[in-house]
């Protein structure tokens, strides 16, 4: 009966070794699981950061937790949580693409709406300024309150506005609404400045 404690010790050693071996066996799969999740997050790219920042933050926070588990050698815990997190990470790309599409559609709608306003407004303003500049160009003497420098500034502003408006309408015709609206905004600024310089009232 003397061998009993020896056997018990041996058994404990075997069990500990088995446990250690089991852990070591789980380390590589846990490491790979984390790498797979990180790869899926990276694949979502900058679009995820731009269009679904909250969703991305939620996943990356869970990745941090998972890495902590790994560092604590809780490989079993890593492997248990990994599949669900991988699914979330893999969903980021599609969610980001969808959010991006929605944002772009909203932006296009906003540009279309702004273009509608500008297209209804700018031609009349351009015509009014061009007409006044044309008449003043024929004047032998500028009216009181308008010096030559201000008039020249208004005239060149009107010319630039006309050229920009041509660019804006060309961009609109080509379907580039963002470029069209950007150019049209510049046209408005130039026309407003020209009108102010010429002492014309708006509306």
């Amino acid at each position, binding site marked *: 009966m003397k061998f009993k404690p020896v056997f018990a010790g041996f058994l404990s050693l075997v069990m500990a070794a088995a446990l250690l071996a089991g852990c070591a066996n789980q380390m590589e799969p846990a490491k790979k699981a984390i790498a797979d999740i990180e790869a899926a997050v990276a694949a979502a790219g900058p679009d995820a950061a731009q269009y679904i920042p909250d969703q991305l933050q939620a996943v990356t926070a869970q990745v941090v937790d998972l890495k902590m588990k790994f560092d604590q050698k809780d490989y079993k815990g890593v492997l248990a949580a990994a599949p669900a997190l991988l699914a979330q990470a893999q969903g980021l790309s599609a969610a980001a693409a969808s959010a991006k599409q929605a944002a772009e559609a909203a932006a296009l709608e906003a540009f279309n709406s702004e273009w509608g306003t500008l297209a209804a*407004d700018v031609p*009349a*303003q351009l*015509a*009014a*300024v061009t*007409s*006044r500049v044309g*008449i*003043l160009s*024929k*004047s*032998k*003497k*500028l*009216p*009181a309150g*308008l010096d030559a420098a201000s008039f020249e500034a208004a005239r060149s502003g009107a010319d630039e506005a006309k050229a920009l408006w041509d660019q804006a309408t060309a961009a609109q015709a080509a379907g580039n609404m963002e470029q069209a609206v950007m150019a049209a905004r510049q046209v408005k600024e130039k026309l407003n400045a020209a*009108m102010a310089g010429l002492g*014309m*009232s*708006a*509306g």
Partner: protein
Amino acid sequence: MQEKTPPAWNTPLGATPEEPVAAPADGAYTQWYEVKKGDTLWKIAKEVYGDGSLYPEICKANQDTLSDPDKIQVGQQLRIP
């Protein structure tokens, strides 16, 4: 330099009957002038353009309401192109 005297108002102004020109549609950018006592189109043109001889521009822009350029009335609204 002596200032030119205004031409006779019965001189045909603006478009000829054979070439009617529609008055521009009024909008937010139409510039208006309210006729004051003592105003003439020449005076108004001198005030807004610096040159009274440009009064036909005002006539053209107000063809629909200005049947006789010699008869503008106090309070009348004139388009100033």
